[in-house]
């Protein structure tokens, strides 16, 4: 594998990690707020909180990792995306900031009481952030960022009137809710919390059809936006078919209330196939037609240094992630909320 491909594969994988953990997180925030509004609070709120509390900070790092890695491996992307995305990027920062801080304020600073305002901020930003981020996918297809001489411009009109933009926003919104509900169903089942499970299962089923519908819509819109990309997607259409099969498996498992662990693995595979299929067919471009992974790659020394640092970093990161999952995801006592009572 060449350095260029290795670099983008690393980044794409981290972005996939972010997609999964952030979706769970964003969706959970929304459900949490929604449950307060509809009076279901005591049914599902605790289970959500128990999962989110130890991991909220980790979620953020996946994103920073991607941004820093992208600029590191492909410094040109700082130039094009950086110049053009000042406004949308800043808005995204503000949303992330509000969300992160008010989560902490509510969880740690409120002495156990939920503040409606904090929860509302948390729930709303949870849906807005994925919508904002997803638009980068639309931008990367070209036609929105344009270079004129030395200047780089962001074409707001092309951006806002583009049907592809809105189809990825839609896809982001519904798939966040779908992924999150799927995961939380699994988590509730592990916690043997049947009431929460039934509520969350309903959410998961409710959002499954819109998700697959939005996926098809986005798929078709790429054809209009960037036909060359669409053609490449057709060349690896097996990946998208595999994604659909995983979707069918996941939904039927949750329907039958069985094998929820496998069900969530099927959800992850569903998105993995679609994600890597999309990414692979997008290559070699990171921003069509200005940044491609070969011309914009950092110098070779830095490429080697980054990949070395990455490999060494994984040696620390993977055991740590396994540890946090063991303690909070797969520890039956913690999941059921009994951890504190286990005294030595």
């Amino acid at each position: 594998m060449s350095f260029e491909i290795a670099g983008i594969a690393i980044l794409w994988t981290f972005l996939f990690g972010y997609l999964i953990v952030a979706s769970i997180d964003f969706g959970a925030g929304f459900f949490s707020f929604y449950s307060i509004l509809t009076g279901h609070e005591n049914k599902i709120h605790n289970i959500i909180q128990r999962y989110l509390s130890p991991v909220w900070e980790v979620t953020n790092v996946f994103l920073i990792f991607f941004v820093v890695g992208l600029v590191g491996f492909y410094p040109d992307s700082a130039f094009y995306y950086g110049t053009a995305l000042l406004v949308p990027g800043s808005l995204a920062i503000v949303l992330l900031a509000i969300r992160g801080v008010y989560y902490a304020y509510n969880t740690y600073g409120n002495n156990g009481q939920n503040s409606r305002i904090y929860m509302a901020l948390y729930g709303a930003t949870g849906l807005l952030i994925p919508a904002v981020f997803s638009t980068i996918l639309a931008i990367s297809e070209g036609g929105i960022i344009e270079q004129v001489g030395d200047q780089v411009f962001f074409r707001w009109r092309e951006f806002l009137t583009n049907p592809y933009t809105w189809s990825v926003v839609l896809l982001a919104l519904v798939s966040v809710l779908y992924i999150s509900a799927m995961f939380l169903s699994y988590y509730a089942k592990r916690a043997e919390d049947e009431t929460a499970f039934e509520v969350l299962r309903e959410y998961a089923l409710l959002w499954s059809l819109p998700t697959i519908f939005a996926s098809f819509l986005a798929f078709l819109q790429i054809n209009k936006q960037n036909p060359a990309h669409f053609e490449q997607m057709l060349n690896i259409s097996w990946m998208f078919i595999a994604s659909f099969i995983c979707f069918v498996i996941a939904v039927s498992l949750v329907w039958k209330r069985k094998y929820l662990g496998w069900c969530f693995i099927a959800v992850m595979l569903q998105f993995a196939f679609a994600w890597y299929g999309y990414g692979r067919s997008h290559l070699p471009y990171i921003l069509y037609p200005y940044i491609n992974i070969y011309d914009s790659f950092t110098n070779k020394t830095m490429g080697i240094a980054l990949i070395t640092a990455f490999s060494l970093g994984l040696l620390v990161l993977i055991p740590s992630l396994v540890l946090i999952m063991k303690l909070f995801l797969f520890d039956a006592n913690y999941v059921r909320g009994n951890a504190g009572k286990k005294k030595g």
Partner: protein
Amino acid sequence: MSSLDPVLLSRMLTGLTLFVHIIFASIGVGVPLMIALAEWRGLRTNDIHYTLLARRWARGFVITVAVGVVTGTSIGLQLSLLWPMFMRVAGQAIALPLFMETFAFFVEAIFLGIYLYTWDRFKKKYTHMLLLIPVALGSSASAIFITTVNSFMNQPQGFTLINGIMKDIHPIAAMLNPATPTKVSHVLASSYTLSAGILAGIAAFSLLRGRNHVYYKKALKLTTVCALVFAVSTVMIGDSSGKFLAKYQPEKLAAAEWHFKTMTKAPLVYGGILDENNEVKYAIEIPYALSILAGNRPDTEVKGLEEFPADLRPPLSIHYMFDLKVTTGVIILLIPVLYVFRRWLPGRKPYPKWLLLGIVLLGPLAMIAIELGWMFAEVGRQPWILRGYMKVSEAATTSSSVGWMLVLFILLYLILCFSAIRVLSKLFRNKEAEKELESLGLEGGIVH
């Protein structure tokens, strides 16, 4: 005009984000160390007071971490959003430390999450405390890596610039530039001082309010002694930073000291003002001091500003920042010294009110010193963004929306800081340590 304005506004916005971030980041670097120290003492001496101290600090710490994380995310993204030209060129050389910083941050985030939720979960009690080691290492390592980036901007090396493109790059040499040792150690030491100072201030504040429980006295002792140790090391490292400047960035030192003519036996100018002819007025001149600061000997030659072209001189206003920072640093050092010798002071009271007031001020003073220090370091390398290679004016974004973004972020940070202070003070007001001790004692909870 359209390319000048974004430069100034980008500087202001970057400065603002860093201004907020630095405080919370410094707390993030220093407090885990203090928590570990308290928990360790609690375990070793089987003293529940220290364990409770660690718990209460950890509770407040999460709030500051949240603000630190989001402002850190801001600056991480703003680096590319506001300085795209800089990142395009220098990204070739600084990507490695930035990348490593996120790894360190990852480790810190994971273990902090574990630490907060595993009190009472391990059979061996030391296991829980050991979780703080990766937290403290992670936060200090991210401070180290990010400071190497800043050092690189001050003292670039490890590449050759050909037609605006960096060639022949040695990432490690870029990280280990001459500015790195002094900067990194100064940043770490001052962060530890700030954290110990803030925690000492909290204890002193409780004593001032008439809470005489031994818990607060123990807290005060632990934190003030730590503050003293850290302050001494900060001042000592600060001295070697001066020597570094004399050797590598003489224009910064000269501007800071209003030192215009190159000479040996150079005096140090303290305070004063500058009139329109660049004549220093009302200043205290300490003979030979600048030469001694620069090279430990009175006959060290110190380069004057006249040797540098006018358009490459840093603004002379950094003199005030430098003097104020040094003054604040000395005060921060003196207060804990007085605490240690309080029994020999007139009055011989164990906790004189004025001394407690002084200790309450340690945290705010350390914040001021850190802000001034960073402003001095950053403004002092104007007009360069990459000293000797790239000017700030060539690096900024060309976007016309920076002004609005500046307004947006001012609002954001005001709200964040205001609510952080509110939440933190509520957190401790609603749950006094005495009551918490009582409830723990009644339950027979963590200690048998």
